[in-house]
Structures are given as structure tokens and as C-alpha cells.
């Protein structure tokens, strides 16, 4: 179970970081969402993974740590709000900047810049 869990968190984090490095806003937003999922799962595991643990005292022999669950709930709510904000913001940026690139415009073509140098007409 631990191995599966670790792979899940790792793959999610990897995809999240990879997508965050893309140039357009949509992949970046998806990347942020994935990073959010990864972080939630990671937080959840910080109380150690164990099966059949009860969260209420006096109901079982094993207890699960309730605090990470509370932390994850808070993190999910905050993350959700933030993602909603960034979605709206990137739509606004698409309208304001006229493109969906994070930098607002295509990177300058370096070959053209070299050609149009002064005295090189």
C-alpha cells in the first residue's frame, strides 16, 4: 500500500510540476490542480498510513491520527478557492492580453532579431 501511495503522490507531483512549466495558461492551471491533489494526498499520509484505524476514541484498538484529516480538509477548501480564482484570472488574461500565453505574448523570434540589426539591411 505504501509503495502504491508513494508512486501516486510522486507521479502527480511530477506531472504537476511539468505542466506548471508550460507556456500556456491552461496546462499551468491543470498543473496547479494536480500539484494540489498531490499535496493533499501527501498531507493525508503525514499521520502515517494504517488500515482500520478509528477516528473516535473508545471505538477500536487502532486509532488513526485525526489531525492530518483536518489539515487536508482545510487544504482542499483553500486549494479549491485558489484554483477557481486562477481559472477566472486566466480567462481574464486571455481577454486582456489577446493570447493564452502566460507571458502575454509570443517570445520574440531570435533569428529575425539578428537579421534586423542595424547596418544589416
Amino acid at each position: 500500500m505504501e509503495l502504491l501511495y508513494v508512486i501516486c503522490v510522486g507521479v502527480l507531483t511530477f506531472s504537476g510540476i511539468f505542466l506548471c512549466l508550460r507556456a500556456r495558461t491552461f496546462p499551468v492551471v491543470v498543473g496547479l490542480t494536480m500539484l494540489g491533489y498531490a499535496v493533499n494526498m501527501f498531507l493525508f499520509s503525514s499521520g502515517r498510513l494504517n488500515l482500520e484505524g478509528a477516528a473516535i476514541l473508545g471505538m477500536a484498538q487502532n486509532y488513526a491520527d485525526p489531525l492530518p484529516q483536518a489539515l487536508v480538509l482545510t487544504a482542499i477548501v483553500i486549494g479549491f478557492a485558489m484554483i477557481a480564482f486562477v481559472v477566472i484570472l486566466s480567462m481574464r488574461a486571455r481577454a486582456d492580453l489577446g493570447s493564452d500565453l502566460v507571458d502575454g505574448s509570443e517570445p520574440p523570434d531570435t533569428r529575425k532579431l539578428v537579421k534586423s540589426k542595424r547596418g544589416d539591411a
Partner: protein
Amino acid sequence: MIEHMIIWPILLPMIGGLLMLLPPFKGVERYASRRIFAVILMLAQITIAATLLITVSSESPIFYAVGNWQPPFGIILYADTLSTMLVLLTTFLGLGVVLYSLAGEDRAGRYYHPLIQFQILGINGAFLTNDLFNIFVFFEVLLIASYSLLIHAGGKQKTEAALHYVIINLIGSSIFLFALGTMYGALGTLNIADMALKISTLSESNLLLAQIGGALLLVVFGLKSAMLPLHFWLPKTYAAAPAPVAALFAIMTKVGIYCIFRVYTVIYGVEAGELIDMIQPIIWPLAIVTIIVGAVGALVSPTLRGMAGNLVIVSVGTLLIAFALRTPQATAAAFMYLIHSTVATAALFLIADMIGLQRGKAIDRFVISRKLKSQRFLGGCFFVIAMVVAGLPPFSGFLGKLLILQAPSLNADKFIIFSTILLSSLVTIVAFSRAGTTIFFRHAPVRDPAKDLSDSPDLSIWQILGVVLLLVASPLLTLFGSHVIDITQLAAQQLHDVNMLIDIMRIRGAQ
């Protein structure tokens, strides 16, 4: 009554901000009632913060168990001299910002005043809490308010800057959560006092986890405080933000600095066993490079507000140098400089905005343009703020820098600190004189002087009031220097006394 007072700096802006969304204050046409209410709120917050500071500095630090869940289990608010001092600074800055924005900036968007209140709520909360996860929550509160304030009134530049700012801060929040998970996994608690107690008794594998968590936290706080190499977002964001918002943002980098001081002095402090001062060797070179990059940036920036943004980076570097010394004396000096630099940079952003308003299309770019309408007043303000920021006597920058220069005891440290800080001050003066000559002395030839000035807007009384309020704080800090130094020394002493914190929380032996 006094025991519940700690939570008021958080409750008051929250309730006030929410009330401003409701009928008596809602709507475009009722901006006047919103303005009055906002000023009253800020005055009330200043009163409360001042009372708290007086109580805490004359008696002892107090903690407040929210919901009466006692430490180490509940969420704890902790007011010591440091946090109350910074809350007072925030509310004072907030008053200046609100006054300045009454000139018309607040009418550009409907939710300006509530958002300012939420921003202050987040900043106050981050200063007052003693729980690492709660710091995260308050960070998010202040961030989401700052996202909205940044694009307040809209515009292409603002949208682009906001997009970068939001994305980089969302990634920062993810790293923060990873760090918190790691720390919780290692220590089993997120109460700062409890973490400080437990970190000395960790097993070897958990020690490694705690070290990783600490390093990740440094990335987050470094991002917030614009420490090199995480500073790239700052000049652009601050230059794009509306002026009063940029002035309020002056305290936001200081929130990051505060967290670095709090976490790495208390948790990774004297009690930390093997992890004592684990980040100090990293901070030391980074601080110096931060100052150099900020100073070079200030020299080459094409606009006054871009220059102000780079000067924020210089001040962050100066604070980090004082942090790297790790003595209570240096910490006290850092707090003095922190108060000064927050007020000074905020005033600088406001003055840059006023100058930009009167220069037509040139705004605050360093190009030859028409003469300013209020040449004398703005010139005077600019001269004063240049002396304040560069650290010339008789203003508070001098006092702050002097204290930092006095702090190191080793000769090798002294050499590096003297050369970096003094050179950065020199570069600051050069940058200011370059900016000042272009703005105030080099004008395009004018055919009809009377006509040329007529379409420049007049300065509003509120703008003047806001700027003067912030500017006057600087000589006052020098005038009452001994009191301020006493308070900062008390704050530093309480911060470094980890055992006192643990005793106040009554958690020793509780496990």
C-alpha cells in the same frame, strides 16, 4: 477583557470587511459611508494594537487558546512584543493607505475597502498565530486579498503581473503544504512552541525529515520575502499594483521575513540539538547577493516605481544579513530596520504615484517631461524620502542601519557587512539622485507655461495626508529612538528566549 484582546486585530477587520459588503455600505453610490467606516475601523485597530503592545511589553507575552483548546492541541494565538509591534505597524500602514486611497483610488472598484480589510486580517493573523498550519491559512487569506487588490481597477499590465504573481504564489502554497506535511510527520505537532520542545528529542530518521521540512519552509518564506533567487516576481508586481496597494504590499515581504525569524529562531533555535541554525550558512551569502542584485536593479530600472521595488529587495537583503548574525542584538537591530523600511517604502510608492499623476504620459518613467504642478511639495517629499531610504541622518534609516552595523562582533563579519550595507546605501543615493534630476530638473521646453500645467491634476488633500502621515513616522522613530530601541530589544530577547515561550504555553512535560 484583556485576555480576549489578542483576537481583536483579527476579528475587527474580518467583521468590518464583511459589514462593508452589506446594505448600509453596499453599492456604488454609498462610497462615502464606506470611506468613513474604513477610517474608523483603522483607527480602532490602531488603538487595540497599541493597547496590546503596551500590555505585552510592560507585562509578559500572552497566549490565547481559540475555542479554549489548551496547547499543544488547540490553535494558539500568541502575542509577544514582536508580533504586537508588527500588528501596530500593519494597522498604522493600513491607515496611511486608506487615507491615500480616499483621493479616488477606492472608487475604481467596488470592493476596495473590504479587500483592504481582509488583507490586513491576513497579515495580522500571520503575525499573531503560533501554529504553523494557521500561518498557512492566514497566508492564503492575505494572498487571495492581494490577488484581487492587485488587479483592482483592471488593465493589461495588472492582469499580466497578477497572473504571474498568482501562479508563483500557488506553487509556493503547495510547497508550504509539503513542508507542513513533512514537519508534522517528523514532529507530530504544528504548534511552534511544541515543535521547539520536540525537535531536540527526534530520532535520526525523523531528524532528516525535520531538516527537509525546514529547508522547504525556507523556500516558501524566501518566496514571500523576495529573497534571492526567488525575487523575480517582486519589481514587476509592485510596479503594476495600484499605488496604495503597492504601499500595503510593503508589509507583505516583511511577513516572510518575520516567519523566517520566528521559525528559525524558535524551532531551529538553541533547543534544536543537531539542527541549530541549519539555514544560517545558506542565508549569509544569499543575503549579500540579494542586496547586490537589488542595488543594481535600483540603478538600472527605467521607472520610479520599478526602482522602489528594487529598493524593497535591498531592504530584504539587509534584514537577512541581520538575521544571519543570530544574536539577540542583531535581531533587535533588524526589527528596528524592519519598521523603518516598511514605512519608508510604502511612502516611496505613494510619492512615486503622486509624481506619476502630474507628469501626464511620462508617468514615472525617467524621461524628460513637463514640469510638475506641485513641484515644491513633491520635490520636498522626494528629497526627504530619498534621505530616509538611503539612511542619512536625522531619519530612521540611519538609526536602523547604524544598529545593524554595530551588531556583528567578528572582524570578518564586520568587513563584509560594512562594505555591503554602506555600498548599497551609496548606490541608493546615486539611484535617487539620478531619478530626482530627471524628474524635477529636466523639462521639455514649454511654449506657454500656464497652459502646460493646467491639465495636470491637483494633489488631493487625502493623498497629502496619507503621505505625510507615513513620512512623519520616520523622524518620529528617530526622535523617540530610545523607546523604539527598547521595544525592539525586548522583542528580540523574547523571541530568542525559547524556554520562556515553552513555559508560557505550559506544555513542558505534558506529553
